[in-house]
């Protein structure tokens, strides 16, 4: 009788080879059904046609440290254009011997941004840190104090200019956007319509028209003798543009607040200013952090448009390298390099926004 009941556990049967491992995975994800099988085969064939030649062009046949002339005969990519001209592409006309200054400023910026990633670091002191940081960065760029030679803002260019336009653009546009959003939600008819007019007007026109306005018409607005430099004017255009978009995002947050919040604040005897500052805005602005980050991303990308009004941002310095006869015709390599820089910037921001969205949604 005892043989009939086995006391020890027998080894479990392994699943068939076709449903586990690489084969099982491929069967489930690539070849389930004939439509998917055909799709997979066609896609694999196309990848096989595209990837190896591209790989060969970019890595096998390419050169990395040559002169422009040596690049002419080869089949592969001429990446030499990047290391040879890197300092000009990144820093533009900034005096060569002081280029450590914008570099340091950028490191401070990245450091601050990196530190601000964690939400537990968001305290009053971080705010002070940013103010000090921005001041130090400004000092490093401008010079003129503590024995640093002063550098005209007309010589600013490259990546620092791109970062400057986007960071200052957003910091200044944010409060303006919040005010516009509050104005649009206001009970005062006149203020409301003024804000609606502004927001819809700005959102209806392309950024390029505002940049044209800043570069051609803005000087006409001011009395004779007073001039602003070009970078500041472009910065103003970017701020005015971004503010309208931020206003719409913030309005979304304000509309998401329930009536109860307003009524509770009112019943406690808070006036409009205190209601907004202590009750509504802290909640509304928290909801709209993820869409605000995506506005930051598009502001960062949009700074590239200043090329059209001849500011020396990252794209313009690259183009000027390409107009040098020695490097003419290697646009693909140079543009791919710039594209990678932009991609890294935007991708880390959008990743961060996704992470933040998750954190904020699980909290309550």
């Amino acid at each position, binding site marked *: 009788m005892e043989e009939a009941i086995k006391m020890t556990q027998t080894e479990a049967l392994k699943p068939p080879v076709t449903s586990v491992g690489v084969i099982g995975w491929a069967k489930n994800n690539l070849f389930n059904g004939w439509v998917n099988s055909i799709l997979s085969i066609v896609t694999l064939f196309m990848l096989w046609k595209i990837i190896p030649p591209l790989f060969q062009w970019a890595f096998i046949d390419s050169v990395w440290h040559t002169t422009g002339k040596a690049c002419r005969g080869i089949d592969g990519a001429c990446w030499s254009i990047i290391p040879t001209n890197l300092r000009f592409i990144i820093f533009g006309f900034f005096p060569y011997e002081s280029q450590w200054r914008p570099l340091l400023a950028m490191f401070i910026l990245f450091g601050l941004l990196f530190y601000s990633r964690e939400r537990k670091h968001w305290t009053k002191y971080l705010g002070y840190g940013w103010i000090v940081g921005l001041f130090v960065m400004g000092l490093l760029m401008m010079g003129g104090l503590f024995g640093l030679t002063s550098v005209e803002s007309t010589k600013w260019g490259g990546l620092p200019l791109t970062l400057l336009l986007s960071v200052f653009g957003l910091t200044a546009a944010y409060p303006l956007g919040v005010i516009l959003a509050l104005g649009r939600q206001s009970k005062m008819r006149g203020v409301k319509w003024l804000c609606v007019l502004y927001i819809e*007007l700005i959102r209806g026109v392309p950024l390029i028209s505002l940049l*044209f306005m800043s570069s051609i018409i803005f000087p006409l607005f001011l009395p004779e003798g007073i001039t602003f430099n070009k970078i500041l004017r472009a910065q103003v255009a970017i701020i005015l543009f971004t503010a309208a978009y931020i206003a719409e995002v913030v309005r979304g947050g304000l509309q998401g607040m329930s009536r109860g919040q307003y009524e509770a604040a009112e019943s406690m005897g808070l006036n409009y200013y205190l209601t907004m500052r202590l009750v509504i805005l802290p909640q509304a602005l928290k909801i709209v952090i993820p869409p605000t980050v995506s506005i930051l991303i598009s502001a960062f*990308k949009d700074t*590239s448009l200043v090329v059209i009004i001849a500011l020396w941002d990252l*794209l313009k310095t690259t183009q000027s390298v390409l107009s040098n006869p020695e490097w003419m015709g290697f646009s*693909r390599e140079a543009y791919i390099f710039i594209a990678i820089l932009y*991609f890294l*910037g935007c991708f880390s921001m959008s990743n961060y926004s996704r992470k933040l969205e998750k954190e904020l949604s699980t909290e309550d």
Partner: protein
Amino acid sequence: MEKTLPGSVPFWLDPKKRAIMFQIAVFAVVGLLAYYLISNTIINLKKQSIATGFSFFHKESSFEIGESLISYSAANSYGRALVVGALNTLKVSFIGIIITLLLGTILGIARLSSNWLVSKLASIYIEVMQDIPILLQLFFWYAIFYETFPSPRQALSPITGLFLCNRGVAFTVPAAHPAHKYMLLALFVGCVVVYLVRRWAKKRQEKTGKFFPVFRFGIAIVIGLPLITWLAFGAPMKMDIPKLVGFNFKGGITVSPEFIAILLGLILYTAAFVAEVVRAGIQSVSKGQREAAMAIGLRPAPILNLVILPQALRVIIPPLTSQMLNLTKNSSLAVAIGYPDFVSVANTTINQTGQAVEGVALIMALYLIFSLSTSAFMNWYNKRVALVER
């Protein structure tokens, strides 16, 4: 205890009066600022002796425009030049929007595909394209065109009748024939007939419950009518093949590298955003809807047509229109690569006449017309499809 009567509140503490005072103050500040800027502008314009007003519309423009939908030469007026520019903007936006919608929808569906390879590739495409500035993409495609492709003499010809060179793309079209005009007319008539039949079929279905296959009928009519017209004209088969004459192609249709670069850039960039919109729309319809439709015995095609799409479209259409508007606005970047769109023509006009205020105002006005008419349409559409709640 003191009693405060409504009448006895001092006027600066009365919210209504305070609001009025505040608004008067805001308007005064805005008005003063506007007055200050405008008066400065007028003084400056007078000092630089720049003319004001739109009288330059009738003056001779004396600049050439590379491509134009209507006849234009340097002897024509600025007004006509601006119309040419506006038409070019419309042309690139119109073609761009149609192809973007197709590509974006395919990418959005591919992103949700159960095929791992397809879905991963689509998501890589979407992420990469969204994170690279459109202007950089335009420069890139333009550079590819004039650096990679050979001169017209060594033009590449991947398929017969199609030529790629650094002067653009030349492709074969059917040779001009009077039949084409009537085929277009037939197509139009077909669309009208389908519209009427669709209305009739809907009414009949609501009354009697009988179903009429509008979609199949529509396809047959829209393709069939022009085809019959074509056959009635003896099926003209003559093709207009581009030929190399001197340094350029003659015959067929030649599309300039600028146009292709701007079109390609706009399509590839906006399609990534459209794909995200489509994906979000499809995901917004809950699984239960599909399962419920299956439970009452609907087949896959009616499930998509009658259950999924009407609900997904409600989510998709508003962000989709704003993407289409973005595409139109981004077409203004054509000025950077030399495609003669409205901004580019207006820019040349500004440089020649010096009338910057009018020029920029025109640019803004044109785009405002586009966006205001789009949002008017959106409001109408939203009202039409809005959920009717109990």
